[in-house]
């Protein structure tokens, strides 16, 4: 068979720039680079037993991620993340965004905990040059694992007051559906009220919450997909 000419760089661009003109799910060169040459992944866990551990699983496609942090006081006496190791079970996008996150957190002297907690998935996506819409939910994973590891640090260093528990706000009082559930559904690709209801059943028991659901839908769509 004849060799196939590789797709043009243009066709490989992510669609984060123009979500309306979706070009399939080809990855940018940066994504490819981090996917084929991932940075900071942990091979063998023995040496990191004492590191701070964070864990998440994505309900969307059943992937899982673990993050190990080392946190040290810098020359200025501020706690910084000096090491970020990870393992992920997921697609190219999950691998690349975790790899990129590990770079962003540890580059220069390493982020302070406050800075790290302020990181948003969008910033990772920007550094990656964009991700296809239906892959956005993978880029959220690393961010969540990072938070969970920072909480582990606070727990182990007895700064329990700083632990941030991500408790959702209940939207549907009958079915106990939170704003996080709505966010999850939007990340999984639900872009209409019907699709959200299909995934979560929200509003079937308590229709009075529907206007609020619609509001959240607009908010998260704007937040993650810019539309």
């Amino acid at each position, binding site marked *: *068979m004849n*060799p196939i000419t590789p797709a043009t760089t243009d066709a490989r661009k992510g669609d984060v720039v123009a979500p309306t003109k979706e070009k399939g799910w080809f990855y940018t060169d940066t994504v490819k680079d981090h996917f084929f040459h991932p940075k900071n992944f942990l091979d063998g866990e023995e040496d990191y037993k004492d590191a701070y551990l964070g864990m998440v699983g994505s309900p969307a496609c*059943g992937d899982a991620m673990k993050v190990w942090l080392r946190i040290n006081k810098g020359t200025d006496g501020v706690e910084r993340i000096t090491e970020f190791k990870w*393992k992920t*079970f997921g697609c190219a996008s999950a691998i690349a965004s975790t790899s990129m996150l590990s770079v962003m957190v540890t580059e220069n002297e390493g982020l302070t905990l406050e800075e790290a907690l302020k990181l948003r998935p969008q910033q990772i996506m920007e550094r990656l040059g964009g991700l296809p819409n239906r892959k956005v939910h993978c880029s959220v994973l690393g961010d969540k694992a990072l938070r969970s590891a920072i909480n582990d640090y606070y727990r182990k260093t007895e700064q329990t007051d700083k632990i941030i528990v991500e408790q959702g706000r209940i939207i549907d009082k009958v079915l106990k559906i939170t704003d996080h559930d709505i966010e999850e559904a939007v990340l999984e690709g639900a872009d209409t009220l019907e699709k959200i209801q299909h995934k979560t059943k929200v509003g079937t028991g308590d229709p009075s919450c529907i206007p609020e659901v619609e509001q959240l839908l607009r908010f998260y769509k704007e937040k993650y997909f810019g539309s």
Partner: protein
Amino acid sequence: MHTIYLDHAATTPMDPRVVEVMQPYFIDVAGNPSSFHTVGLRAKEAVTEARQTIARLLSAREDEILFTSGGTESDNLAVMGIVKAQRQAILSFCHSRAGGNPSDGSPGLRFATPEDDKKPHVMTSAIEHHAVLEPLLHLQKIGEIELTVLPVNREGLVAIKDVRTALKLSTVLVSIMFANNEIGTIEPIADIGREILAWRKEHITPYPLFHTDACQAAGAIELNVEKLHVDLLTMNGSKIYGPKGVGILYIRRGIKIEPLMRGGGQERNIRSGTENVPAIVGLAKAFELVQENRETENARLIKLRDRLAEGLLKIPKTRFNGHPTDRLPNCVNISFMDIEGEAAMLYLDAQGIMISTGSACASSSLDPSHVILATGLSYEAAHGSLRFSLGHSTTKEDVDFVIAVMPKIVERLRQMSPVNLDMKYFN
């Protein structure tokens, strides 16, 4: 880089001999078969000839072959068309039987629930192609049918006794695929067909009708509608080195079917639309070629297939998916535990190897393969399932190259993975 295309179950490249016979019908003989002038007549003759060829290969009659735009349309037409057309027929039939013979003790004349009484019943399998499942689920959702989805065993086989148990007087259609597109398992279509025939005879009813989607089977198995006892059969060009966007639905003579497309009345008024003459000519040629060379090509592919499977299964923590022997000659589906299929697919792609995966991450709905799940595997195993489907261009060198690079890719991805499944759940 040398490209090793192992995704023939997704679609095949075209056989150059097929391209050649299609050539005249693009420009020189580009008439509309419905036109009465010479060019129109030539086009019509070409369509007729193609129909005859296909009919002959299926042991069917010319007027039983209907050209469509492909497998999806044929499946939709079979499912929706039969349900719609038989809906009235089955109701009047059941009611007349139920009302006419309450005293003679004929079996099965009472319906389980008043709901069943109103709805035609359709039976299908859990591993059907979406082109069958989706229209059926839709009909179920809008309340038009009662649907039974039969389970399959670990190897992907439908049990004939399950078919028998689920049959009832309101059953209008049974639709079971001939060979599965993901795991390659070949269903016992002839046996199911015989079972249905016997049931119809016993209950003195013309129903249910039996449809099979034979798209994947067409290149590897004899398709004889008489031996298979099917009433409807779907087949297309894109899996048999023919053109895409063309298919047929075989409809046994005398069966009423409701059209999906109305218009100029082509294809016996069941499928309106100007015939895609070059594609129809190409489909017939492609079907003829694959059927003629079936035995030699199958023998060649089976050797390669088994060599590939054996080589890949040496990698630790793998599970073979599909039936060990009743399987398409070109299909190898293996789950590589602890890794995700899309990532593996892209690593293989970087080596020039084109395959596909049942992973959720690679599907637009983020759902893992319904076929792999139906064989009783967990989400995790479906995530790591890869399908290698061989074809005309596949050589022993290709297979050996895949066997050589795969262990490294799996090892690399496993290093990155936090998952470590216990194989005792998969054996």
